[in-house]
């Protein structure tokens, strides 16, 4: 039902706009030609459309339900990244003519080896960013239509693969700009409706959070993955049809549908704090409950603010600007557009904490946004808003995934393998299949956390490469390569350590779970030290200066002479 009413329209309208866009303006069918006409406002809507992924639409609110108000630092970091982009990267990157970081590496440093290495980094970032998109699409579809998790993931993967294999998103700029407006409306309207509809007592509870210790009504929780719960008192629960008394530790089997009775004490999930305690309402984020919220919050915002400039699907978008100046404007307007959107995740988060706190038991807090309307209104209105939010979430998932799968496939077939035209299409299918397989086993990992790791890898590799490549003439190939390598191994090694449960505690646990505070400086330092030991080629300074020369500079005598000589004057 939901699939038909919410997801299908989004996909259809997306395709329709693409087709109409092409029919309306023949010349824009060529992305490259269109680039000269796209205004900064339209382009920044497209950037925002591509950028607002499932992590923004669902993940932030989910993390608020689970971890607390401090999760609002995620959208702050997501937005702050565009300031760094505006100041350091946007205009010079556009002037380099490069579409991707591998292209930039080649244009600035002329090194095929560095090109291949940066393509590998794109695979890592793309993987970390794509898996949560597919996972959340699967989770949301299974939550609103009661299908198994894998069905949703496979539907999502098939949707992406078919759309790209049929020819991708036509008139991509218009589609992405439309997607942004769609997401904005589908996010703001239900938020306002929810706030009005919930009534004064829920609104009061929302700003006076209480710890989630007791079920206020009979509560049904679907466990899509097996979970270990710790009960402090014997509790009578209904599992499917049977009734049983559980106490102490209970391993909930996968797929169990459990009804907790009203008034029962809420069990604890092994290794996690209950939502709503005193830490929950603090505006700081305590990663892995390590007890150092300030350090955690710093680590997070640094990773997000510096990682944005290295996201492959975002960099590609800036090429649609006609020149460096327009690219810079695009980055600046994007800050404003994202600012409007990010005023609203907090509303879903605090309402979700009051109305659906039980989602944390099954690790499904990412579905809080779409679970809310049904809690407020059981009738057709609730159903309508659930459908609207599901449609918005799917739009978010689709916009980000299509761009990313294409960038990742491009990196494989153009930068890593000697590719052909047909191979790109095959690569798209292989990449989609691989992401589906990864997403099937990643159901436990929150979208916001995985996406943040993508930002962390980007901040530790592409951020130093772009910043030094654009602003430091002495950067050498050896320096760039060793810096990217060190940043890649440091950040992904720390992330792997967290995934495999490295036994670390306290502030060390934070620096492993969120390595940006040390991995980014380390990568910068490596690049600078190794570069200083070598010698840049004679043209290095020119290659760098070229990135800062505005295209519409005043015509000089030399230019005029050349124009006369070439017969163009």
């Amino acid at each position: 039902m939901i699939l038909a009413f919410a997801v299908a329209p989004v996909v259809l309208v997306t395709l329709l706009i693409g087709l109409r866009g092409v029919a309306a303006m023949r010349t824009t069918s060529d992305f490259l030609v269109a680039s000269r006409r796209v205004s900064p406002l339209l382009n920044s809507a497209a950037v925002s459309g591509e950028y607002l992924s499932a992590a923004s639409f669902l993940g932030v609110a989910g993390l608020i339900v689970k971890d607390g108000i401090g999760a609002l630092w995620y959208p702050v970091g997501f937005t702050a990244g565009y300031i760094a982009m505006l100041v350091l990267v946007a205009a010079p990157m556009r002037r380099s003519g490069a579409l991707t970081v591998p292209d930039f590496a080649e244009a600035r440093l002329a090194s095929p080896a560095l090109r291949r290495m940066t393509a590998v980094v794109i695979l890592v970032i793309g993987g970390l960013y794509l898996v949560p998109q597919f996972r959340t699409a699967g989770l949301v579809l299974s939550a609103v239509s009661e299908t198994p998790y894998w069905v949703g993931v496979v539907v999502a993967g098939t949707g992406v693969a078919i759309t790209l294999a049929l020819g991708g998103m036509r008139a991509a700029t218009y589609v992405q700009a439309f997607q942004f407006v769609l997401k904005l409306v589908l996010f703001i309207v239900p938020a306002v409706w929810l706030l009005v509809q919930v009534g004064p007592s829920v609104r009061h509870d929302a700003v006076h959070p209480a710890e989630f210790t007791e079920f206020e009504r009979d509560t049904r929780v679907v466990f899509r993955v097996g979970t270990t719960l710790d009960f402090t008192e014997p509790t009578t629960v209904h599992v499917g049809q049977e009734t049983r008394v559980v106490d102490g530790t209970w391993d909930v089997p996968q797929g169990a549908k459990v009804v907790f009775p009203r008034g029962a004490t809420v069990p604890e999930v092994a290794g996690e704090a209950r939502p709503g305690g005193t830490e929950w309402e603090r505006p700081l984020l305590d990663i892995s409950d390590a007890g150092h919220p300030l350090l955690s919050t710093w680590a997070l915002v640094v990773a997000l603010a510096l990682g944005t400039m290295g996201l492959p699907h975002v960099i590609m978008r800036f090429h649609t600007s006609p020149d460096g100046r327009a690219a810079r404007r695009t980055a600046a307007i994007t800050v404003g557009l994202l600012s409007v959107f990010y005023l609203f995740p907090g509303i879903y988060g605090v309402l979700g904490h009051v109305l659906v706190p039980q989602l944390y038991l099954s690790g499904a807090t990412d579905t809080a946004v779409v679970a809310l309307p049904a809690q407020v209104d059981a009738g057709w209105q609730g159903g309508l808003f659930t459908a609207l939010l599901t449609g918005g979430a799917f739009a978010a998932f689709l916009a980000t995934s299509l761009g990313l799968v294409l960038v990742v496939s491009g990196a494989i077939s153009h930068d890593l393998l000697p590719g052909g035209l047909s191979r790109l299409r095959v690569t798209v299918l292989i990449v989609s299949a691989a992401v589906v397989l990864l997403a099937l086993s990643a159901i436990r990992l929150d979208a916001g956390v995985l996406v943040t790791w993508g930002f962390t890898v980007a901040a530790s590799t592409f951020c130093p490469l772009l910043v030094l490549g654009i602003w430091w003439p002495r950067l050498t190939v050896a320096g760039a390569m060793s810096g990217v390598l060190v940043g890649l191994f440091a950040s992904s090694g720390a992330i792997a350590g967290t995934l495999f449960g490295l036994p670390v505690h306290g502030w060390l646990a934070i620096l492993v779970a969120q390595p940006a505070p040390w991995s980014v400086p380390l990568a910068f330092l490596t690049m600078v030290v190794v570069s200083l030991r070598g010698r840049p080629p004679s043209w290095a300074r020119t290659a760098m200066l070229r990135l800062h020369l505005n295209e519409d500079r005043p015509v000089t005598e030399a230019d005029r002479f050349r124009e006369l000589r070439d017969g163009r004057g």
Partner: protein
Amino acid sequence: MSPQTRLAHSRRRARGRWRVPKLDPAGAARAAELYRRQRALAIAPLALLFAGILGLPLVFALFPGLDQVRLLGVPVSWLTLAVLPYPALTLLARWQLRRAERAEDTP
């Protein structure tokens, strides 16, 4: 074929065409001047940005009392985090955009 896909394809053709970058003397002088100007202009916004995103958590950590003060029923610290950064970042973007463009406009 969609424009995005075509773009992805076109990258292959662009490969191997790398040439030594050249600038005429006037262009090089102008580029060097712009590079110095933009580099000088970049310091203030970055300093402000990081002062903001690192300073605000510090304020929250040092003054936990902000959680108890309420404005329209909502804790002030929540409002400061959920609302305040966005107009501030938007103004910062606008300010820096103006400065960067003015630097390019002046000869």
